[in-house]
């Protein structure tokens, strides 16, 4: 009997070791040769833009379910925004969304919309927003089968989370499924993670995967969302294979951009980051939450709007005369934590310090991103006005030639943030919301309503819409005070805010 038990024990250990050995999760296949006409790229997903309609870019921030609900609220409101086009027809602004760039919690919303636009509004709330994702993840962690798999060095908690998102939210869809949709039927999706070896933004597009000589098409969308929302410490970094086959040359801009003496430091850094994937010793890529390099999803759009280096450069379309109006709308679900540490002499605990370490840099990067894009738009408007002013003065001299103004794009940047809510009670309440994958139904309802309210009360958005259609008027939105009270009275921030 004792022998049988020993044999069984040894057999169990052997099975566990075998299973752990089988648990392998680098599911990004190699790419034979780079082809600019195929794969998940802007130019493949969208037809070339035209001057007669606005080019809309949406950016969804991180922040767990709070961010997902807030960005969903923005999508709900955008669906209702209609304007009169130049030919007199009515158009929905939602149909002009060319690109959605997202991070972490916001990536669940953007990815679901790109995959299932027909049932996005009816299904996503129940599928994700009102679901206790956090409990689902914890339950999987307590499954003994996963303990064995987690013993493998090639399978970690983030791979388990990826499986959960794949099973419960994204139905096993891959980037190839996104490519099957008719061109122009959905926006180009840019899911952002952070490459922690070079501390740089990493986007799930074929242009990025070209650098790894890997084919994005067979990668599941859930894997990209898992990487984008891979919160440090809670999960281990997500690993991708970086292949060393000769799939094709690096983009042409990288060579000249590496010249340190003749380029701005940021451009050199971008080029060095791209080139690093071809280094012989970089055989794998380790990814964490996109928020570590850009918690708003705005860095990619900034690069696209200000450079011709971006693989989906929007500036290129300005040069081609195809960019009449550019509108960037950022749903920023950032919170402002009320810290009571300074009232006591004892230092904050390890949990509080970890919270600062993981969240602090995200807030700083976000602030910089807003400043950068807002500053760029302001500077472009000033340059354009300068040319117009010059021409006004030149007009006084009959022999003087007029200067053709190359800056013909109309720029709008609208940031939706809780900081702009005039009501201190609601503002403090939302700023105190936790970052988690589980919020009460009422909280989700309040976030959805707030996004619509903030869009309709954004001065920048309203001004941009009026330049597009002078007859357009914002919808009057009043957030239900009963709903506000139901959510906010349960939060610790309630007293201080009230």
């Amino acid at each position: 009997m004792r022998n049988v038990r020993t044999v069984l024990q040894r057999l169990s250990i052997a099975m566990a070791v075998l299973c752990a050995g089988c648990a392998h999760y680098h599911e990004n296949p190699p790419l034979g040769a780079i082809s600019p006409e195929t794969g998940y790229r802007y130019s493949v997903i969208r037809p070339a833009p035209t001057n007669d309609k606005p080019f809309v870019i949406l950016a969804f921030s991180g922040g767990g379910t709070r961010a997902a609900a807030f960005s969903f609220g923005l999508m709900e409101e955008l669906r209702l925004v209609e304007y009169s086009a130049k030919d007199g027809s009515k158009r929905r602004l939602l149909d002009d969304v060319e690109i959605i760039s997202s991070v972490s919690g916001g990536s669940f919303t953007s990815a679901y919309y790109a995959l299932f636009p027909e049932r996005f509004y009816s299904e996503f709330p129940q599928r994700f927003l009102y679901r206790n994702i956090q409990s689902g993840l914890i339950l999987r962690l307590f499954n003994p089968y996963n303990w064995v798999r987690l013993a493998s060095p090639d399978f970690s908690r983030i791979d388990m989370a990826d499986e959960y998102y794949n099973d419960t939210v994204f139905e096993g869809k891959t980037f190839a499924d996104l490519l099957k949709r008719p061109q122009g039927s959905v926006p180009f999706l840019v899911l952002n993670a952070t490459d922690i070896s070079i501390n740089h933004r990493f986007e799930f597009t074929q242009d990025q995967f070209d650098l790894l000589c890997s084919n994005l098409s067979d990668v599941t969308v859930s894997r990209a969302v898992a990487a984008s929302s891979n919160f440090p410490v809670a999960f281990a970094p997500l690993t991708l294979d970086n292949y060393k086959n000769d799939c094709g040359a690096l983009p042409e801009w990288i060579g000249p951009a590496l010249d340190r003496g003749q380029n701005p430091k940021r451009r050199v850094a971008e080029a060095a980051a791209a080139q690093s994937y071809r280094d012989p010793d970089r055989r794998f890529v380790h990814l964490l939450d996109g928020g570590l390099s850009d918690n708003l999803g705005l860095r990619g759009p900034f690069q696209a709007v200000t450079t011709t280096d971006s693989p989906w450069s929007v500036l290129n379309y300005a040069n081609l005369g195809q960019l009449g109006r550019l509108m960037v709308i950022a749903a920023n679900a950032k919170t402002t934590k009320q810290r009571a540490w300074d009232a006591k002499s004892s230092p904050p605990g390890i949990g509080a310090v970890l919270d600062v370490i993981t969240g602090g840099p995200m807030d700083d990067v976000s602030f910089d991103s807003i400043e950068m894009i807002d500053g760029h738009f302001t500077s472009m408007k000033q340059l354009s006005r300068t040319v117009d002013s010059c021409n006004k003065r030149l007009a006084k001299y009959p022999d003087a030639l007029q200067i053709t103004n190359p800056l013909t794009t109309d720029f709008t940047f609208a940031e939706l943030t809780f900081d702009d809510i005039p009501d201190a009670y609601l503002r403090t309440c939302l700023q105190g919301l936790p970052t988690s994958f589980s919020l009460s139904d009422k909280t989700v309802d309040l976030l959805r309503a707030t996004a619509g309210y903030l869009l309709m009360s954004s001065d920048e958005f309203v001004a941009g819409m009026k330049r597009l259609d002078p007859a357009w008027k914002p919808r009057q939105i009043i957030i239900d005070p009963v709903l506000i009270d139901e959510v906010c009275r349960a939060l610790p921030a309630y007293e201080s805010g009230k």
Partner: protein
Amino acid sequence: MEFFQCPCPQRGEVKLDGKDQGPNKDDAGNLLVKQCNRGLHFVSLQCSDGKECVSRLVQITDTDPISPLEVPFQCET
């Protein structure tokens, strides 16, 4: 933001680091100003009528929309 234009006796398509930026001139023959980010770039012009395209490595910096950098080309047969 930086600005440049590509004067050439012929009409052609401006390429910046291999990417198409549209024609160098409008239909009336006026030079068009192109935008790019600051730094070193490959600029070329694909001339029409089978003329040869020439590529040049140019530093584009300290420009403005009123006085863009001129990157002249001479299309060769």
